């Protein structure tokens, strides 16, 4: 009888302790766990992504371009780079370009990410937006560099105008057809390539002393850059 009474007296306290313990444990778990998504995000139609997909289907954008399923108003595309000047010495070299635009009407710049693998190691490459993917390349715009690591991988991220990049001489800007926008001022730059920033590096990496200098790097002296290393390789625009 006494033991039953003792149990009845102490049980609320035990219950309280158990409840408190459980509550504290769940609070601690919630603090350390990643925030859970309360509701599944509603799939929204992205008109800009649909427009670009249609451009790929109709051949206005290259077939290598992937338009990602992003939420409006963002636009995200990806396309590969393939080896050109380094094809024989580095046949496994690959590159992936990701371009992100926040809002077509209000973005102040696009974000461009270039990832490469199996490239010549410890070399600086220049990145250009170009009129044509292959020789003679046409009008060009120097946008960034990428320096590979010891294992031939590398990455660079920069912010510039990409989706509507163009070259012009304002004295006679002319017009051209943009893959996405129609007729525009200037000459549209809708391809991307990578070049050896130094002819000497290229000659050493490719073991070819007959290589000639190119214009594909800024600064002194003229024609100190090497040949194209990677290209999107497409005739139709990639962005």
């Amino acid at each position, binding site marked *: 009888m006494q033991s039953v009474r003792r149990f009845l007296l102490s049980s609320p*306290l035990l219950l309280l302790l158990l409840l408190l313990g459980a509550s504290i444990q769940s609070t*601690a778990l919630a*603090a350390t766990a990643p925030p859970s998504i309360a509701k599944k995000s509603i799939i929204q139609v992205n008109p800009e992504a649909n427009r670009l997909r249609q451009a790929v289907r109709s051949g206005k954008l290259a077939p290598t371009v992937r338009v990602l399923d992003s939420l409006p108003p963002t636009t995200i595309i990806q396309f590969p780079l393939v080896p050109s000047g380094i094809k024989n010495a580095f046949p496994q070299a690959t590159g992936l370009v990701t371009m992100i635009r926040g809002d077509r009407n209000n973005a102040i710049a696009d974000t461009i990410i270039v990832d490469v693998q199996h490239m010549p190691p410890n070399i600086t490459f220049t990145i250009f937006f170009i009129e044509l993917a292959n*020789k003679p390349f046409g*009008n060009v715009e120097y*946008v960034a560099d990428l320096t590979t690591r010891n294992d031939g991988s590398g990455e660079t991220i920069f912010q510039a105008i990409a*989706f509507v*990049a163009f070259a012009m001489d304002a004295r006679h800007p002319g017009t051209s057809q943009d893959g996405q926008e129609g007729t525009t001022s200037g000459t549209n730059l809708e391809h991307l390539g990578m070049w050896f920033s130094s002819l000497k590096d290229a000659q050493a990496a490719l073991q070819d002393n007959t290589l000639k200098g190119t214009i594909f790097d*800024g600064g002194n002296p003229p024609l100190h850059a090497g040949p194209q290393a990677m290209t999107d390789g497409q005739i139709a625009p990639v962005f």
Partner: protein
Amino acid sequence: MVFQHLFKRRGIQVAVLLLCLFLSACTSSTTPPTTSNNSTPSGGSPVQAKPPTIRVPAFSSGEQIAPTVKVLASVDPTVIVQFPLFPASIKSLFPDASALVTVIQGNPQTNDFDTVIVDVQKMPPNQKFTVFFTELSARPFGHAEYVGDLITREDGSGESIFHLIAFVAFAADARQSTVTSQDQSGSASGIQLEHVGLWFDGIAAARQVLHDPGLAGTPFDGGGGVLHAGPQALTDGQTLPVI
């Protein structure tokens, strides 16, 4: 009876004490450990680091630079230059419009790109402007590169930051590889783009803001519609290069 009562009360006190200890243990286990301000990551004595030396880097060995360019004293190997922009087409309506451009190069030998910051004040409010690197600061501007946009706020202020090649920006047609021009580093391939300007990104907006329906469109914006941009709003106004 008294003992029994005391025992009960003591039992409750012990339970409360245990509860406090339990709560204290739980609280301390979820609190991240704090570190002393004086300790170092390795646990040794604090390092009394000397402040790095500041120097004014050499900027431009190959050509003269505009007198408005200020090369900041900075820690090696960074190069930071600043220069103002002045109102162009907006001068009569927005005479107090001003802008400051800051261009930062982390390490001239290894940087992947430069950082360009454009800050504007007292500009036409709620307007979008395009930012270009140009061959010439005034008409006919010559070769141009579209680098970004800037949207002003209600009070006419605005800011944009870009990461791209600025100090050695150039325009070129690779079919004419023999074309060269003078850069800060000497002779270089292509046509150097060493000026900065802002343009109205829409001719309709420019006509409205400047109360001039006769304004002609310009090519200073990308995308559909030929000559759909407006006139130059801000210029570095220099004959000599600013970048």
